[in-house]
């Protein structure tokens, strides 16, 4: 498992899928480079999980093509795809010990028992579960189960690793520590990961690339920075990070809370006149919530930059640099 760059590239072209009259994937195209961490981010019903199921072979696409390492996998049955999968509920076999769960995929590959024991041992060490080898999943905590699922999927040296909301069932603290572990594992092993989540923070934290999905289409595909700084549409701007939408119709523009600062505009800046609603001190930053006409706007300012908090109800101008303004000319 120590080989680096064992991941393979994935190429998806014109993938269509419908359930009865409802089309859930509208001819999606996606290229994932070998060793890349690619996250499919979207609300429920956006088609992200369907996409994962089609790649794994649990669902059949109506049309389109999926290549892994340049080979069409359409005719490869699920069991022969060599794709690792971490399920949302982990899907650990309840009657098998941690060791047996992890060894299962290796047994299916007909490896020698010495080889199986060696690689299972390594995998358990990798996720720090050696001490729990003979426990059944029911006797483990949620975080430990999650790591068993991860080890079980990785031990088979998968061409790609699919992860379906793998942290959804865990509490926030645990989630953050496991995110760090996943990121470290990805760096260490160089496996290609396609990760599905609806949690934008998780996506920003983990991904080399984020694919924002909306109603079965790809809304935008790019690095976390690209998506945050240059969202391709108001939808992406609103979905990834907080955003103040201003103007309307073809003049719609937006600005991130940290780019909107109190005070009148100078050269190369835009001004928004508003009335302060509340001022919330959050430690290092302070959040000012104000009303500009119909819209509520939020400004986040470093707490050190505010001498005196503006009073609720008082009028206050805000400004933003033109280069921070997000706009979508038709």
């Amino acid at each position: 498992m120590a080989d680096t760059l064992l991941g393979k590239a994935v190429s998806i072209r014109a993938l269509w899928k419908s359930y009865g009259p409802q089309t859930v994937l509208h001819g999606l195209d996606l290229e994932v480079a070998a060793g890349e961490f690619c996250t499919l981010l979207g609300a429920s019903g956006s088609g992200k999980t369907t996409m994962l199921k089609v790649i794994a072979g649990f669902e059949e696409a109506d049309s389109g093509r999926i290549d892994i390492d340049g080979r069409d996998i359409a005719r490869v049955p699920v069991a022969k795809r060599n794709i690792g999968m971490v399920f949302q509920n982990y899907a650990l076999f309840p009657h098998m010990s941690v060791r047996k769960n992890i060894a299962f995929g290796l047994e299916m590959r007909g490896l020698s028992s010495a080889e199986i024991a060696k690689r299972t041992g390594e995998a358990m060490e990798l996720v720090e579960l050696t001490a729990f080898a003979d426990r059944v999943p029911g006797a483990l905590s949620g975080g430990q189960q999650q790591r068993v699922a991860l080890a079980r999927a990785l031990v088979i040296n998968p061409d790609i690793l699919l992860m379906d909301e793998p942290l959804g069932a865990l509490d926030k603290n645990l989630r953050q520590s496991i995110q760090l572990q996943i990121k470290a594992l990805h760096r260490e092993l160089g496996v290609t990961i396609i990760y599905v989540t609806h949690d934008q923070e998780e996506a920003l934290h983990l991904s080399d690339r984020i694919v924002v999905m909306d109603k079965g289409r790809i809304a935008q595909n790019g690095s976390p920075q690209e998506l945050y700084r240059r969202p391709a549409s108001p939808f992406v701007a609103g979905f990834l990070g907080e955003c103040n939408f201003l103007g309307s119709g073809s003049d719609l523009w937006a600005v991130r809370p940290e780019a909107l600062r109190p005070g009148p505009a100078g050269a190369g800046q835009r001004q928004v006149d508003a009335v302060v609603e509340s001022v919330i001190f959050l430690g290092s930053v302070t959040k000012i919530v104000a009303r500009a006409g119909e819209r509520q706007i939020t400004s986040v300012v470093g707490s050190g930059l505010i001498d005196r908090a503006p009073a609720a109800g008082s009028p206050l101008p805000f400004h933003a640099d033109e280069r921070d303004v997000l706009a979508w000319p038709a």
Partner: protein
Amino acid sequence: MSLAENPREHSMAPSPRPRKVGALPWLLNAPLVVLLVVLFLWPVLLLLGLSFGEETWTLRHYARLLEVPLYRTVLGNTFLISGLVTVLCVIFSYPVAYLLATVGDRTRKILFVMVLLPFWTSALVRTAAWIVILQRNGILNSVLQSTGLTDAPVAFIYNLSGVLIGMTHVLMPFVVLPLYAAFRSIDASLVLAAQSLGASSLSVMRRVILPLTAPGVIAGATIVFMNAIGYYITPALMGGPGQTLISMLIAQNINVDLNWGLAAALSVVLLVATLIIFVAFQRAFGLDKLFSGGGGRGASQPFGVHGRRSGGGWVTVACGMLVLLVLIAPIILVFPMAASNSPFLQFPPPSYSLRWFENFFADPKWIRSIWNSLKAASVAVPLSLVIGTAAAIGVSRATPRLRPWLETFFVLPMVVPVIILGVGLYYLLAPLGMLGNPYTLGLAQSVLCAPYVFITVRAALKGFDPTLELAALNLGASWGTMFRRVMLPAILPGIVAGAVFAFIQSFDDVVLALFLTNVRSRTLPRAMYEGMAHEIDPTINAASALIILLTVAILVANLILSRRNAHG
């Protein structure tokens, strides 16, 4: 949005779809479908055809049913007696369900045995025990006369009271179980709320408990009525000429009058009545409730007595205990009677010995019948186990549209009166020369057994996480390997329970054996039935005791196995 776009126009050269497990549901469902079509649907349809005349189409047989006063009386009697039995079951079940719901967990377990043991004991054995208790010189009459309560023996059986006692005893658990579940699903806070609003315990019963338990009662009562109208053994053995029911008339037309057309017409009437009730039940409650014993969602704090029981509560508890004692009494009394040294059915026995057991094992008639029973079970149990398990898996993968139809079809043999199946199979198999051998009987019994396996395995599968299957396939397992290593261990308790039910069903069957076997190939229950039809010989008590012990042993083994599985 461009929903109108045709997906295909956008695709690149579409690659062929991967082969899926599309054919699997069909392969899995097919064996049970074939079994039921050949040995269930086909014979029943033959009877339907027969009822309209053998050569030319005629309504003659149906006309006769309406014209002859005796037949009208029998039809009326059947529904009247079934109705009475249903009412009695409901009345006696209430105190028992209340008692079960309001005692502590440990007591409840013991009391449950008093309900479940009779439930799982052969109806024939229970009927035999009742005859021993209730007959002219039976246990009850000797007690009554020796205590001076009556001068002459009271006629408890071979009349209406005999039929009512026997059938109520046999069918009552069908109401007790859903009613108990209904009681448990009442939230205790509802009772407290009613009391805080000033309701007396009688008002709580009338205004809160009765309405909330009504669905459970109606579900149970429907099952009882549906079973009662087709019942054969108990009324045949415990009733008099005035209590002839449809099922007995069917048997008589075939065995004595050789009037197949009329027997077929009677069968169709019985079948239609049963199916109407079944469909109504399914519409009202859904198929699941037929087996799950009713039961709603578990209440956060289940109904029970918190604090002191009211006076009415104590009366109800006393009534419940009394009913439970009557439920278990015949099963218990079989043992001293079987161990009696007396050739007469005296109670209490003057002295004890094992002579009737020795008699049983020394008589080739009994030994042969045991072998025949085991031969039949050796076909029925494995066959229904494999076919029923396959169907349960197949149904869980069938399309949502097809699934309810398959489920209904697969449980239909539990609903249709066995006598109809017996007559139909006799008519189908006799010309083929297949009768008179225990293996044919086993094949026929698998029609009765497979639905039990289907239901228990289906229930086990509902607890099986389908992503485990995907995970196994994803890790490289073939479907067969996945089944063996992942699914089978998960559903094994369901399969074992199915095997237990299938064995009990096969081993206790009397009605199919009456039609499909002869003197040489008859099974233990048939041999007992024939013995009872004349005079109860103490050897029959010994046979009853052995059957009860076997039932208990099987149930205990199942319990231990499922316990071990739950903990392993």
